[in-house]
């Protein structure tokens, strides 16, 4: 296996026109766009986020509400443009780029491999096909992307798939409606690497089948989460920064006023860090 080449250039040399390949990629991009929009409309994801943003604005506008107990003053904050840019940078740099949502380290790693592998692989494929030329750098990105996608998607299936890990189902019991996204990624990475190593029409057809299944099932799969998850992460950062935070409590023991309250007397001599309770053990009994 030479990671400085891809089988795409060989395909062009063997009689398949660049224009045909460009047509296929364009159709796949079109499918993703149309189906993602249909998915957003069907699930009302965009509406949900606009409503959530409006609700946070309403809470903010209501200001410091009448409070029976607790120090509310100075807690809510109108965000400046700079604050919003900060939230956006945090969303892109942490929540998106490093899958910051996951508190489970290994699962986060698997997601990073899958996501960045997919991005590298798809971007390199598109650049090679639309540029009608392959460079060693692009080919390396294509191969590394495919390998990362293989590690991430197959690692997820065999280490984190809840049906198998926790509910005792066989790894080979497949529910196409639920597993199509995982299977599409697994199939795409495996067949792409098989095509790279062994060449030949069979592997090429398998690549076409896998990628068509992946991009043609966006409406029914969880593919579009890559568009609405960043919106959710940004929204979370904004409401945390402006203090509305979906009405979550904000009282803590750090507040001296709280420390002197009657019901907090039991904690007067206790350390400020009590260690971990139920979070000492990983959730693995489900």
């Amino acid at each position, binding site marked *: 296996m030479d990671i400085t080449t891809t089988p795409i250039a060989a395909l062009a040399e063997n009689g398949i026109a660049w224009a045909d390949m460009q047509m296929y990629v364009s159709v796949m991009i079109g499918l993703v766009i149309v189906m993602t929009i249909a998915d957003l409309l069907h699930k009302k994801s965009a509406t*949900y986020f606009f409503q959530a943003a409006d609700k946070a604005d309403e809470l903010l506008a*209501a200001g410091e*509400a*009448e*409070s*029976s*107990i*607790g120090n*509310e003053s100075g807690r809510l904050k109108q965000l400046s443009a700079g604050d919003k840019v900060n939230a956006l940078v945090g969303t892109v740099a942490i929540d998106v780029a490093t899958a910051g*949502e*996951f*508190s*489970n380290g290994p*699962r986060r790693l698997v997601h990073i491999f899958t996501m960045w592998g997919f991005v590298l692989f798809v971007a390199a494929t598109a650049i090679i096909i639309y540029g009608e030329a392959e460079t060693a750098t692009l080919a390396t990105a294509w191969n590394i992307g495919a390998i990362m996608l293989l590690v991430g998607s197959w690692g997820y299936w065999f280490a984190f798939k*809840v*049906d198998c890990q*926790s509910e005792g189902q066989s790894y080979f019991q497949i*529910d196409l*409606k*639920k*597993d199509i*996204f995982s299977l599409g990624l697994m199939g795409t990475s495996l067949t792409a690497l098989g095509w790279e190593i062994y060449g030949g029409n069979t592997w090429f057809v398998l690549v076409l089948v896998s990628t068509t299944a992946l991009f043609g099932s966006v409406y029914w*799969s*969880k593919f579009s*989460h890559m568009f*609405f*998850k960043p919106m*959710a992460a940004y*929204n*979370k950062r904004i409401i945390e920064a402006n203090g509305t935070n*979906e*009405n*979550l*409590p*904000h*009282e*803590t*023991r*750090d507040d001296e006023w*709280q420390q002197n*309250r*009657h*019901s*907090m007397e*039991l*904690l007067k001599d*206790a350390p*400020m*860090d*009590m*260690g*971990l*309770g*139920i*979070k*000492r053990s990983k*959730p*693995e*009994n*489900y």
Partner: protein
Amino acid sequence: MPTFVYMTRCDGCGHCVDICPSDIMHIDKKYRRALNIEPNMCWECYSCVKACPHQAIDVRGYADFAPLGHSVRVLRDERKGTIAWRVKFRDGRVKNFLSPITTKPWGSAIPDFRNEAEPTQAERDSELLSFEPESIRLDDGGLHTLESNGLKLKEGVYY
């Protein structure tokens, strides 16, 4: 009202699935996020709501204290040893509560029974339970009551 999950906050970690006494919190097979598979069987114990590290689970409070349009949110901070509640009524009034959930660092007061001596026959025949009378301070001036400690029970709710 039963629990529901904000899918945009959930990361599918499984803490709620582990802790649910009814075994009705499951991970969705497609989206890999938590959901309540049987709302009718949820008795609103709030275990999952408190255990969720992302505050992704919510419950509507009972109509008698929080009619529609309210919000009841809870934040369990086990590192600080506290739990905070925030009740917002539909007329805009807000009540905040902060209470201890432990008085000692977690795990520090779990007795190590392996190192304890076996009870004697006399202790087995006694009406006292294990570690009594020390554990309930009966050996330290008899039965402790509010009266013996110079305290008085006040009427009403106070905090």
